[in-house]
Each structure stands twice: as C-alpha cells, then as structure tokens.
C-alpha cells in the first residue's frame, strides 16, 4: 500500500511538472533563435521592414509593474495587517475578507474595465498609470490574504514578549509581527507580482500599448504581454518569431526578479533561526 500511494504521488508530480517543462522547453526552442542584441535595444520595426526589437516593451512592462507594486504591495500588506491584528471578529473585517476572496476570482479583463472606468475615462486618455492601477487591483487581494494568513502563524507569545517590554502595539506589529512573518509575506508579494507580470487583458484598454519609446506615465505605454498579443495574432512570420522570443524573455524576467528578491530577502538571516 505504501508503494501504491508513493507511486501515485510521484506520478502526479510528473503529470504536473511535465507540461511546465514542455512549455519552457518549447519557448526556448522557438524563441531563443530570435533573440539578439537588437531585440533588447531597438523598438519594433514598421510593418514590412525586417528586424526591430522590443526594448520599449521590456522597459514599459518594468514601469507598469513598478507602478503596480508601489500601489498594490503597501495597500495589500496594510489591509492584511488590519485583518490579522485589528479586525478579529469585526463585521468590516469579514466584509474585507469576503471581498478579497471574490476579487481573487474576478476575471482579469474585468480588472481592466475597472482601470478603464476609474482612470482612463476621467483622464480621457490611455496611460501607463492606468495599466499600473489595473494590475495593482489584481495584486491587492492576494497580498492581503497572504499577509493575514502569515501574520496568523506568528505565535501570540512573541507579540506578548514585545508588549511586555513596553513596546507600543504599532511598533510590535511593524518590528515583530511583520518581521517574523516577512518570508511568507514576501513570497505572497512575489506570487502576486509574477501573476500580473504576464497579464494582457487588464492592459488592453489601460496601458494600451505603444510602438515607440515612452517614459511619460500619462501616455500609453508598451508592455511585453501586449506586444506578444499583437504579434502573435499578426499574419507575419517575423512577428511570430518575435512573439516567441518575447514570451521567453517575459518568463525569464519574471524568474530572475523573483529569484533576486528571494536572495535579497534571505540575506542577513541568522544561523539557527526559523
């Protein structure tokens, strides 16, 4: 019986990992050949011309994601702190928790519409900012719930230790509870980040896309997923190849940024600590 359960779980693991490995392999196979210096340094060539790159999309994605993280991570963590440290058993907290769970399941295109009606409509133009807001909407519920759950795993005895030393509650939350829960909270933020980094739908009518360089947050901006979407639907082989390359770069960038944050977050962890 042990053997059967063991084999089944190994089989399940392989079933889960096989498509992932296949996708990664296929991306490298299709995309790597189209990667060259121009891809990272030049902007898209006009229709009919050879060459060109996606430098503006890579930078654009970076700008949108930084905007989304700057808005989504603080709000998400603060809401999680409220739920875990102040809101136990309160009606408002239950309402927030329920809303966060529902928002987690809302299709991403709906988040795009929300960004459209809240930022694009009043401003009357597409913008990087609108894209960032739409992605931040998507990040907040995940981060809120992860933060709450991670704070719940911090033993009450540790909070009492701080309170018993005459440390005010706000300081206890920041320097003890959040710090003790930080590995899990960082993982939650990274998951939310990685999820929105590849989103196309929320950006379609917020960031909109741009064939040229743009560093103005109030102007439409290019983004890798948008560019992949446009190029993959196009009738040109050259653009298809570039879409493959862009997909590979997008995945690589997500992996690199997540790994960097992990390495950075693990620095200074002490021997024997938990």
């Amino acid at each position, binding site marked *: 019986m042990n053997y059967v359960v063991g084999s089944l779980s190994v089989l399940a693991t392989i079933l889960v990992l096989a498509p992932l490995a296949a996708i990664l392999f296929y991306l490298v196979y299709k995309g790597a050949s189209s990667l060259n210096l121009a891809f990272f340094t030049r902007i898209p060539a006009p229709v009919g011309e050879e060459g060109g790159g996606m430098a503006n999309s890579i930078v654009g994605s970076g700008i949108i994601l930084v905007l989304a993280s700057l808005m989504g991570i603080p709000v998400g963590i603060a809401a999680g702190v409220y739920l875990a440290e102040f809101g136990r058993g309160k009606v408002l907290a239950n309402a927030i928790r329920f809303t966060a769970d529902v928002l987690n399941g809302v299709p991403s295109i709906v988040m795009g519409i929300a960004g459209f009606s809240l930022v694009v409509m009043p401003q009357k133009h597409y913008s990087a900012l609108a894209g960032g807001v739409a992605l931040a909407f998507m990040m907040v519920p995940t981060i809120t719930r992860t933060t709450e759950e991670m704070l719940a795993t911090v033993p009450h005895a540790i909070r009492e230790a701080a309170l018993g*030393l*005459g440390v005010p509650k706000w300081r206890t939350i920041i320097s003890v509870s959040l710090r003790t829960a930080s590995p899990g909270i960082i993982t939650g933020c990274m998951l939310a980040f990685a999820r929105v980094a590849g989103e196309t739908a929320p950006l379609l009518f917020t960031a909109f896309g741009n064939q040229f360089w743009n560093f103005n947050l109030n102007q439409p901006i290019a983004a890798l997923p948008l560019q992949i979407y446009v190029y993959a639907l196009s009738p040109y082989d050259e653009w298809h190849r570039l879409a493959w390359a862009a997909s590979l770069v997008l995945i690589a960038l997500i992996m690199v940024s997540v790994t960097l944050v992990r390495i950075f977050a693990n620095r200074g962890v*002490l021997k024997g600590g*938990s």
Partner: protein
Amino acid sequence: MGVGILVEDLNAWYGSTHTLQDINLHIPANHATALIGPSGCGKSTFVRCLNRMHETNPIARATGVVKMGEMDIYKDASPVEIRRRVGMVFQRPNPFPTMSIYDNVVSGLKLNGFRNRRILDETCERSLRQAALWEEVKDDLKKKSGASLSGGQQQRMCIARALAVDPEVLLMDEPASALDPVSTSKIEDLIFQLKSQYTIVIVTHNMQQAARVAENTGFFLNGKMVEFDSTHKIFTNPRDKRTEDYITGRFG
C-alpha cells in the same frame, strides 16, 4: 531598586467569567513573592493585571487599585509606561525568532527607538551577566539567532531581555515549568540573586520552588486569594484548611 506593590479590591473578568475576586495584597519591595494554586485559580491573571497585560485581550477587563510605590498604574500612566517599569517573563521562552541574541536582549530599548551603540553594548553585557548567560553566549551575540539556544538558555535570555529595560518589578509566570531540572535550578539561583535589586512576583505550580525562592507566598483558589503569609508560615502552619489541603497534596 525595586518598589512595593499595593493591591486593593482587584477584580478581573474574561468576558463574563469573573476570574479574580476582591484581591487585597501588599507585595513588599526587593523580596520574592510566590503565588501558588491549582490551574485556573487566577494566579496568572493576577500577575497579568500587575503590568496591564491583562487588557491586551479585547474581552478582558479589570477594576480596582494597583499601586506601585505612589503610582496608581490604572490611573496615572499608560499601559506602555507600566510595562517598561514592570518586566515580565513568560511560561515558555519566547525569543524573537528573527533577532540575534544581542538584538533579543536589547530589543526593549531598540524597539523603543534607543540607538546609542555604546549603551546598548553595555546593557546587553550587564543584562546577560545578571541572567548568568554571558559566558555561554558572549562569542555568538550577533552571529546566532536567539531561537537557536537551548530552552533553558532561551529562558535566561528572556530574563536578560526583561532586565535590560531596567524595570523595578519582575513578574515571572511559571518561568521554569517548561524547563528541565538543571535549567530550573539555574533559574531559581537567578531569582535568589535578583531579588536584592528587584521586586519579584513568581507564579509557580511547584511548591518546593515557592519554598526555595520566596519570602512570602499567596495561595489562590477559584479566583480568590485564600491566604497570604510568610512562606514558612504557609508551608508549616497555614491558617486556612484549604491551603493545608493543597500543600499536603490532597487536591490540585
């Protein structure tokens, strides 16, 4: 130096449960006072009322007067100020897992915004020496996490952490109940030395421990203090029948 504590008509509730009823007690300065009694008798609640930790639980409340020296701790100061003057050591060692030994010991100062390195260093060494832990950890102060120490060492580190903020009173809620006999005797030695400088209130399940470390002992039962007297009197010639039954092991 320690300061005496005067408790008058102290009552405490958890929700609708009346956990402490009309406690009147004088705890003398610079002595160790033991509180004994069966589980759930209110002795832990009582010490938590002395540094207002009781009220960190939203459903808990307390009424009455607790005076530390001339100060009424429920009227004249905020809970945060009280807890700086009344240190607490908990039943289980509760080091901050993300902090080094050094940061654990001086956390009460650092988390309150104190940054002077020289004074922090001095305080760390003084507190660890007072807690008889200095020799064992002095080489790993900033290298090792406080959570990497053994249980007994962790508890002495928690005592050092409480002493580092220079309290006048030290509350100990069954500080040795989670420890092995060797660590327990180290903690008891420590209490014996510390009481010359601090007023110590120790909750214990272990009657021998009360007899070894404390000059005075109070016996709690069902939320009431049945008897308070010198430890010698309580253990040799108690006034109340219930105290006698408890210390002779007839219940509890």
